């Protein structure tokens, strides 16, 4: 039996952008504040001291406003009855394929940020040392559960 690897990538839920945005904010805002404090007490004496908070601000601004929609646009997944394919990233592009029969176990997780936007992550564990955990974020909880059940049925069929 030869079949093709699915090419029709589906996007994840648009709400995932907000999750990314919040995550970026949680990471960058303390750093930005830190750099401002550092500038206020130490760096103002140096001629180019203002560069640090400036760079921190630019990075924080772009990762909150610009990056999430880009990450979202580059993230896609495809399913067929045998495998799941997850494509992500542009600068560092990764195209992962996990055959269902190789899945050890499956989690559907959802953290506080995900819950805020009604999202869930599908976490697939394989036996591989590399890629032992493959995560597909930004799914609707019912969609994640449906995929989980499909994979579980496949695992059971393989075991019998």
């Amino acid at each position, binding site marked *: 039996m030869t079949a093709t690897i699915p090419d029709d990538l589906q996007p994840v839920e648009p709400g995932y952008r907000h999750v990314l945005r919040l995550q970026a904010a949680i990471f960058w805002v303390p750093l930005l504040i830190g750099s401002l404090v550092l500038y206020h007490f130490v760096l103002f004496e140096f001629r180019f001291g203002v560069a640090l908070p400036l760079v921190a601000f630019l990075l924080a601004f772009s990762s909150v406003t610009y990056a999430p929609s880009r990450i979202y646009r580059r993230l896609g997944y495809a399913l067929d009855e045998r495998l799941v394919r997850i494509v992500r990233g542009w600068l560092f592009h990764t195209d992962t394929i996990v055959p269902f029969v190789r899945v050890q176990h499956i989690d559907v997780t959802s953290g506080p940020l995900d819950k805020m936007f009604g999202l869930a992550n599908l976490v697939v564990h394989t036996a591989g040392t590399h*890629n032992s955990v493959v995560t597909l974020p930004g799914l609707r909880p019912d969609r994640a559960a449906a995929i989980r059940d499909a994979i579980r049925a496949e695992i059971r069929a393989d075991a019998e």
Partner: protein
Amino acid sequence: MTDDPAPAPVEQRGERLHPLFLLTGLGKVIRGAWGALAGGAYLAFRGDLTLAVLLLGSFVGFSVAALVVKWWTFRFHLERDELRIDQGLVSRSSRAIPFDRVTDVDIEQGPLHRLLGLARLRMETGASAGAKDQEGTLETVSLARAGEIRDHVRARRRGIATDPVAETSGLAEAPPLFAMDMRRVLIAGLFNFSLAILAVLFGASQTFGDLIGFDPLSRAFWSGLLAQSAPLQAYVMAHRFVTIVAGSLVLGVIGVGTGLVRTLLREHGFRLDRTDSGLRRRRGLLTLTDVTIPARRIQAAILATGPIRRAFGWTTLKMQSLASDGAQGSHVVAPLARLDEAERIQHSLGRPLAPHADHWRGLSFGYVTSMAIPLALLALIATVATAVVGPVALLAAAGFTLAAVVRWAEWRHSRYALDGDMLFIDHGWWRQRRSILPVARIQSLDVTDNAWTRLFGFSRIRLGVAGGTLLVPFAIDAITRDDARALRQRLLAR
């Protein structure tokens, strides 16, 4: 025969470890006692002898009591399909290890174990690496009992009942699949000579040479040694060069000697057998180990060789299975073998060692250019900088050029092949490694690229394979995008 109970009658409450556990366990206690010893020594030095004795006494008393309690509360039950281990005094835990999930049964004997006819039995289940030492270890059982348990596990795991006695005694006569005589072990020891040890020795002799009175790189060392022969002494004193050569020789001998001893200790009497269920490896001089690697748990084979070993036609064969072999990751099934010997081992598992020669594909040349272009730029900058910094910069330029040449050599020697349902990946030029992986063992597949590699039109394929370590990746480092897609199609869409 399939539904008979455990081979030996077991009491209802399970078995204890061998009582001599108290003796063999002491070694571990002493090893853990350095802190108390140091504290005691310090106190004794300060004159608080009573306190020192009190500290050491209470430590010893406490440790021995802990050992006794551990022995008293530790019970294991050998059941038809699982091993159950109950332990703990205050918080009791009960662990069941189904034989279906046991990947290896290791029998290990330290020097003390051998003296007393005991063994340590360890069941590897390939569960999380963090709990590795904890899972299913019976510290001290009699050697005979260990053998019984292993045979029982093996028979259960295969789901067929074989006569365990016939299997083990039959094996003793059957010729081994691969074995190393003393000569081979010693040759392996020569290759085990490690530059790292040598570097450490050099450093140590330079730093502490005066302190320990051993610095073969100093003239005083040799003049003292050669005091009997006055003319030789005078010669040495006159020629610094001679002392350096002689000193390097001495350190070299030590380095080689260490490698020899380590290898001899580990590989002595190396013997690999093909059993019904897999491979059985026995080796060791002081600590004998006896490891079974079930064939159906073997994920991949790795054939590795270094520049000198290759010149003499030697190679190392390892098997990557779900269980790990100590810190090594993979099980070495032939430390030093000829290619045909490695091939025999692979064939015994029904797997090939090499693909049909037509199937080899080289890596994308982007592998070289993507690295050589920045390196060439750096070399150019360094050359220009010579005008400012002086000839040192030329050295840097030469280094960058060399790195680019090495990259090219690696590209020349790296290739991959898909032959039937086996994937072969050759990697490396200095240390060559061939990974032989059944397609059915691929757990996941990544195609990665980044802005830079895209410029040169190649991607990297990385395969998830069970077992082993992340340090030895299964990867095709440079492959054009179209080839990557085609290969992925052939690997996964079947």
